[in-house]
């Protein structure tokens, strides 16, 4: 069932400060009651009051919190609202959100708080256009991030599960629609076995989600540059540095290396791309195309320039690709004889801006030597200050998308448990399809696929109907 009370993290995903999880909707208080442990029950408290307590997932205390209880209509959305002020830290805030989602709220759609605020008359009419823009742009972003998050192997896994579910449902349904041609008697046992398998697969996916294999947090960072500019050495230096956590993330494409790096308290998902240059080699071209795609989707682009070589047309191409992104340019190989200075790159960059009819904005440039590990500290400081100034941000949408994916997996698992429950309780076969289709729909929300005519099509393509 589509839950109508929504929740999301309403603050930026920084590692410092306070993180707020907002719950809005008719059931906001009852959801909060289920996760909040304090001296009193929240739903019995007056509006616009603040309470101290803990958020717990069952017996497991997650965080010490302050909770604001606000009743409709004097809230941002115009609905009952509970805001949970957590101690912060991306992990804790996301755990709190997950717990809230497990207890009856659903993950908010992009722009949904704003939309509700508007529809409940909390905003001026003139703001309608702006609200629409927020919804569309955030949707595009969420779609982009959710799809880019969903690596091929995971996507295929979910599709496999969906295919199994729809197959079994279609069999049951075809028998119900054409009982004289197809018999579903005794199918419960087969379906039970299949459901257990599907549940195991789902549990595995949820586990891997907890491991961070499915859902990644952090600033999407892409290292670009010509071949041999020193991109890989930079990545090695960064990942070997400080208390770096290096994770091999499954399912990454073979043509790009991806690592998760903690840097000055920030998390960077760094992708080292194939060098960008004009090439006739098809395989290499595919790698280059991929690199361009990553660059387009990145939050931060690190452009490594080989300072021992002159700029050429390949550099033009790269600059063309990244000039309007959040970029740091590293002039590498300061240990060698340099022929290229900051001024040369800046001049080139200006040309690119003019060519595109945009006014020039300066880009941080740092001279480094990946080999000698020089200039790395300065690079880190630059990233950090960009982040603190707000010119670089974690994409919280990525986070919300992740939370949504995980809660969709849990919903699907829950539905499959109900299928097995119905089988064990000796319910008639037509009851199985209700929960099977719920599971199918939940999984579809991860891969961005609606149900539409899927069931009817599956029935006709797989089973021979009568007349």
């Amino acid at each position, binding site marked *: *069932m589509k839950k109508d009370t929504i929740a999301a993290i309403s603050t930026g995903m920084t590692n410092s400060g306070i993180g707020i999880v907002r719950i809005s909707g008719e059931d906001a208080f009852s959801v909060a009651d289920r996760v909040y442990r304090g001296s009193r029950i929240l739903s019995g408290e007056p509006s616009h009051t603040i309470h101290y307590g803990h958020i717990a997932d069952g017996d497991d205390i997650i965080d010490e919190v302050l909770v604001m209880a606000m009743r409709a209509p004097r809230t941002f959305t115009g609905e009952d609202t509970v805001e949970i002020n957590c101690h912060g830290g991306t992990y804790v805030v996301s755990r709190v959100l997950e717990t809230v989602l497990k207890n009856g709220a659903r993950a908010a759609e992009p722009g949904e708080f704003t939309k509700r605020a508007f529809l409940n008359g909390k905003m001026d009419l003139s703001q309608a256009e702006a609200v629409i823009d927020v919804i569309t742009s955030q949707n595009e972003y969420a779609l982009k991030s959710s799809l880019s998050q969903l690596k091929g192997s995971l996507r295929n896994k979910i599709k496999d599960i969906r295919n199994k579910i729809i197959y079994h449902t279609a069999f049951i349904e075809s028998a119900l629609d054409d009982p004289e041609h197809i018999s579903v008697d005794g199918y419960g046992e087969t379906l039970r076995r299949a459901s257990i398998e599907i549940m195991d697969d789902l549990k595995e996916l949820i586990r891997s989600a907890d491991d961070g294999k499915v859902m990644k947090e952090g600033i999407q960072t892409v290292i670009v540059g010509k071949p041999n500019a020193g991109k890989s050495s930079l990545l090695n230096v960064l990942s070997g540095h400080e208390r770096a956590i290096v994770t091999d993330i499954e399912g990454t494409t073979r043509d790009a290396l991806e690592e998760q790096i903690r840097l000055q308290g920030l998390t960077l998902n760094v992708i080292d791309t194939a060098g960008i240059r004009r090439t006739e080699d098809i395989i290499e071209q595919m790698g280059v195309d991929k690199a361009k795609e990553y660059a387009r989707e990145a939050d931060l682009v690190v452009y490594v320039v080989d300072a021992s070589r002159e700029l050429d047309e390949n550099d033009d191409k790269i600059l063309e690709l990244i000039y309007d992104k959040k970029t740091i340019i590293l002039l590498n190989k300061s240990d060698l004889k340099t022929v290229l200075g900051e001024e040369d790159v800046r001049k080139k960059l200006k040309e690119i801006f003019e060519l595109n009819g945009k006014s020039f904005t300066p880009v941080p440039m740092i001279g480094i030597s990946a080999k000698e590990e020089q200039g790395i500290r300065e690079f880190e400081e630059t990233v950090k200050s960009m982040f603190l100034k707000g010119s670089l941000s974690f994409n919280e949408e990525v986070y919300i998308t992740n939370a949504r994916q995980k809660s969709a997996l849990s919903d699907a698992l829950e539905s499959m448990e109900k299928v097995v429950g119905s089988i064990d309780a000796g319910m008639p076969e037509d009851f199985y399809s209700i929960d099977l289709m719920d599971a199918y729909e939940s999984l579809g929300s991860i891969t961005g696929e609606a149900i539409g005519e899927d069931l009817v099509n599956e029935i006709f393509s797989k089973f021979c109907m009568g007349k």
Partner: protein
Amino acid sequence: MKYSASSVWENKDEYDIAVVGAGHAGCEAALAAARLGFRTVIFTVSVDSIALMPCNPNIGGSSKGHLVREVDALGGEMGKVIDRTFIQSKMLNSSKGPAVHSLRAQADKADYSRTMRQVLEEQEHLDIRQMEVTDILAEDGRVTGVQTYSGAIYRCRAVVLCTGTYLKARCIYGDISTYTGPNGLQSANYLTDSLKKLGVRMYRFKTGTPARIDRNSIDFSRMEEQKGDERVIPFSFTTDPEDVQIDQVSCWLTYTNKKTHEIIRQNLDRSPLFSGAIEGTGPRYCPSIEDKVVKFPNKDRHQVFIEPEGLHTTEMYVGGMSSSLPEDVQYAMYRSVPGLENARIVRNAYAIEYDCIDARQLKNTLEFKDIEGLFSGGQFNGSSGYEEAAAQGLIAGINAARKLQGKEGVVIDRSQGYIGVLIDDLVTKENHEPYRMMTSRAEYRLLLRQDNADLRLTKLGYEIGLISEERYQRLLEKERLIKRETERAEHTNIGTSEKVQKLLASFGSTPLTSGTTIAELIRRPELSYEKLAPIDEKRPELPYDVKEQVDINIKYDGYIKRQMRQVEQFRKLEKKKIPDAIDYDEIQSLRIEARQKLKQIRPSSIGQASRIAGVSPADISVLLVYLGSK
């Protein structure tokens, strides 16, 4: 008085409503319109073909049985007529949940037609006219009448099109084709062009029927007998169950085999479907035997049901073997089936192609969006089946009448009935084949059961004016009894007496450790309301249909409540209406695909918009905000 050579007969003000076509849709439409007091004329190419069943000899079946009951609950005729003319009846899926139980009756085809014709003939305000309608007359986007092949003009204020499979119909088998409607009846060759001139978009669909075989040539000893139910349940809520306990006739089951499939495979190149001679789109759920053999090569056999066409004919319908193969192949193929070795074909199997409309041009009242007063129903709208036709015909007829009454059209939504699912699907979704009702199409099927069709729709039928005061009062009484008995069962305590434990044990149910209620016991899968009668001492005497509702309501309470919550969500979006005058081009943030679809279909509510393929949740959000700002 002498008339000039060029004059035509013009009927200026004799009729309010004209119904074109007297099949299952047309009959319901005309009866509804006339019963609501409007002077109605129904046109047919042949009075002898009123309510004809040119394909299978049955009414009902999975989900179709639901439709018949809903038609009946609203005051339609189909259920009553089949109750008077059936020769065998079964409740399908009776071992499954109540939501998928479905009645299916074998009809005496000739008797069915004759009985329905009689109902029409005796209906006040209703005239039957044998004549082909060739033109729909309209002025300023409003229908003003129809014109017939003879040139005569019938002025009226609303028209209901129920032309079935007759528009530019062509029947085909092998390389033989005739330009006729079903059963060699005259096709209607002009109306399509008239509609096109009015801007109506047409499709070409295809369907088919198997051969009819002489009963005297069939060896039934090689087949399995299929009997009707011992206790027959009527379709109509007005039929006395005792009246339908008749002597039933049997159907017979046999199978195709490898030899049959071999014959078909070897002659596929002679099938008009595979050679490309048929251009129409055929239904996937009702495939010809050659389709089945091609699509499911691993199946060694397919079921074949031999069903009587009536009591006063020897013709038998060969269910499961519709075909458009040439005549010689048909003989070989049918005769390869056990029991049909010496089969004599009375009528060949054939495929039929016909014109129908893209139903997305209709409102959910079944009125054309661009032609006021023009309504349509049945296969003309791209559906298939007698029951689907009757359901649409009834709604189209009701709404044509309401138009003239100056009332808002009746729309049954997806949470109220299969009729709602059927019409919403037809007018919202892209449809490339004749549409058949299926229980899997109904999201809230646990609520839309055949057993509670009266509870769902009779009040509406009463408000419309097709249900008598007496029938309405009976319904209210039934509601009261159900409510009272459900509450009593919820509050009646059962102790752990020996009698109770013994009864539980006799049904293999776990003994009680402490007291409980009757309702709690009903919820156990192995028990039911009926089974608990011996230990439920204060139970009142109640009619069967009341007890049935109490049992279902209590037993499936959890599931039912869950669906009711889903329905609440669904209704919220249905209630958000989209004004006719909305300019989608003004909403820049809609994606192009969504904008095109919305402009084409012009949904009446946000709910309907959300069901259009190509309109995303984000587009719906944008629409909501846009409408909120107006």
